[in-house]
């Protein structure tokens, strides 16, 4: 009996309407509600004044106000934090992709002396505790006069993002049949032309997914970003900790700053969502 019934539960069965409510779907919806609840709570806090938050408990803002956001957008010490974060994250994503794409191609297409060791060694840098690099980084970047610049943070973050980018891209590139390379050479393409015109478009979704991961890990990191910057290039996450401790705890303002740190990420997800689905579907990430 299960012989016929069970496989019907699989995705391929066409008779099942997607509107049917199965226990798994209910569980999934409950999970998503739980997932969004803490974020929702911060959002409601950000729309209330601090006095309101401390005096009354409410599940939604009864007198919503944008005051907290206005304060952040009009105070240079607040909004410059966002600009700084965006600059070094973009810089890091660009640099990581630029160096990782050729390397990933080499790893996916050729064997060469020490390739396996090199690949594993690259990965070990992804495993290095950032706390370990705190002091050496500070000294190194002081020596080359890069402290408190966006470049310093972008370079420091490439420590874990470049290995990750090589890793992910290698997976995607290995999924592209080698026949594509060979056909192109027979058609008389030179290597650079083949690479830019044929190969890169073929792994566009892979590059999208990689950029997403680089953005993500650089955007969320705080320890190194905070250590390597003092004023000019200070990331928003660090501005949050400092400003809050200086003015006492203004929960509404803190929540608004937190909500604004989610916005760039949400935008990036929104733009890569189709790539992401397609990219993840290519497997082997």
């Amino acid at each position, binding site marked *: 009996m299960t012989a016929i019934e069970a496989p019907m539960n699989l995705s391929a069965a066409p008779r099942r309407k997607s509107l049917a409510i199965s226990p798994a779907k209910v569980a999934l919806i409950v999970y998503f509600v739980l997932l969004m609840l803490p974020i929702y709570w911060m959002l409601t806090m950000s729309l209330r004044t601090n006095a309101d938050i401390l005096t009354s408990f409410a599940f939604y803002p009864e007198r919503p106000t944008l005051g907290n956001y206005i304060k952040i957008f009009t105070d240079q010490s607040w909004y410059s934090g966002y600009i700084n974060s965006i600059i070094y994250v973009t810089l890091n994503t660009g640099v990581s992709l630029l160096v990782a794409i050729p390397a990933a191609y*080499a790893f996916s297409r050729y064997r060469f002396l020490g390739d396996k060791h090199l690949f594993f060694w690259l990965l070990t840098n992804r495993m290095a*505790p950032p706390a370990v690099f705190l002091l050496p980084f500070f000294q190194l970047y002081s020596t080359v006069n890069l402290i408190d610049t966006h470049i310093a943070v972008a370079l420091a973050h490439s420590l874990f993002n470049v290995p990750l980018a090589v890793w992910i891209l290698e997976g995607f590139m290995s999924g592209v049949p080698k026949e594509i390379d060979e056909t192109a050479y027979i058609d008389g393409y030179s290597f650079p032309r083949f690479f830019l015109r044929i190969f890169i478009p073929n792994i566009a979704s892979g590059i999208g997914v990689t950029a997403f991961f680089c953005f993500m890990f650089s955007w*969320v990191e705080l320890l190194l970003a905070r250590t390597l910057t003092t004023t000019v290039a200070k990331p928003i996450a660090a501005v949050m900790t400092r400003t809050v401790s200086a003015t006492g705890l203004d929960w509404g303002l803190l929540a608004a700053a937190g909500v604004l740190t989610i916005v760039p990420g949400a935008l990036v997800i929104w733009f890569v969502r189709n790539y992401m*689905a397609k990219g*993840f579907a290519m497997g082997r990430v």
Partner: protein
Amino acid sequence: MDKPVNQKAWFMVLPVLLLVAFSAIIPLMTVVNYSVQDIFGPNERVFVGTEWFLDVLTSQRIHDALWRQFLFSGLVLLIEIPLGVMIALAMPKKGWGVSVSLVLLALPLLIPWNVIGTIWIIFTRPDIGLLGHTLQALDIAFDHTGSPLHAWITLMAMEVWHWTPLVALLAYAGLKAIPDAFYQAARIDGASRWAVFRYVQLPKMRGVLTIAVLLRFMDSFLIYAEPFVLTGGGPGNSTTFLSIYLVKIAVGQFDLGPAAAFSIIYFLIVLLFSWLFYQVLQNVGRGERT
């Protein structure tokens, strides 16, 4: 797949090598340098050999932090991997639900780590937090700043909330990559739901699950910002994990030598375990596939 040998491929790897050398090898050499010296000032340093290493290896506080860290990472893997796989199995396969699920899952991953801590402070405080207030209303005494157990529960809840989506996304990618032909074959063989999972889906997910386990182990073992914001390592030392303690020694007390020796041992432990996981997961289930 047989790849041709081509030593010129080194030129394509060179930029990565130079960049990582600058941001990894030079700092790592500095750490090694510190770890064998006692540093009094900019130009006053004495070679002390393995003294710092012996200090670190015999330090009770570091032992405690290490066991705490293993417990934490173990719990993280035990909860997040099965949960992530279950979520991936329950996710819609096509239609608008896919995009919505993916976007919702990815959202917690893109929040800066200290903001994660902030979210959970706001969420769990008894006076202003939804969870804290609800627990109080239900008359459940819960205080993550006073009770070590409650601090751990809150941290685990935060960690599972934060990172299970990554496992789910990776597992979902693995599931999507399975061709329909496999399911059709399973149907012809009359395989049960469990058999399909055990013999079709799970083996096919091995690659992505390897990555998920490795990433989750590494990142949970290196955790710093979230517990630092949420509990500050307390109450007492109950949530002082390795990174928190390391930063305390290196920046708080400025004990460069012990901090450097600690760093090296810390790094080696992560390396060893990542390698072990990698080997085990590569070999598990290898013989079953035909």
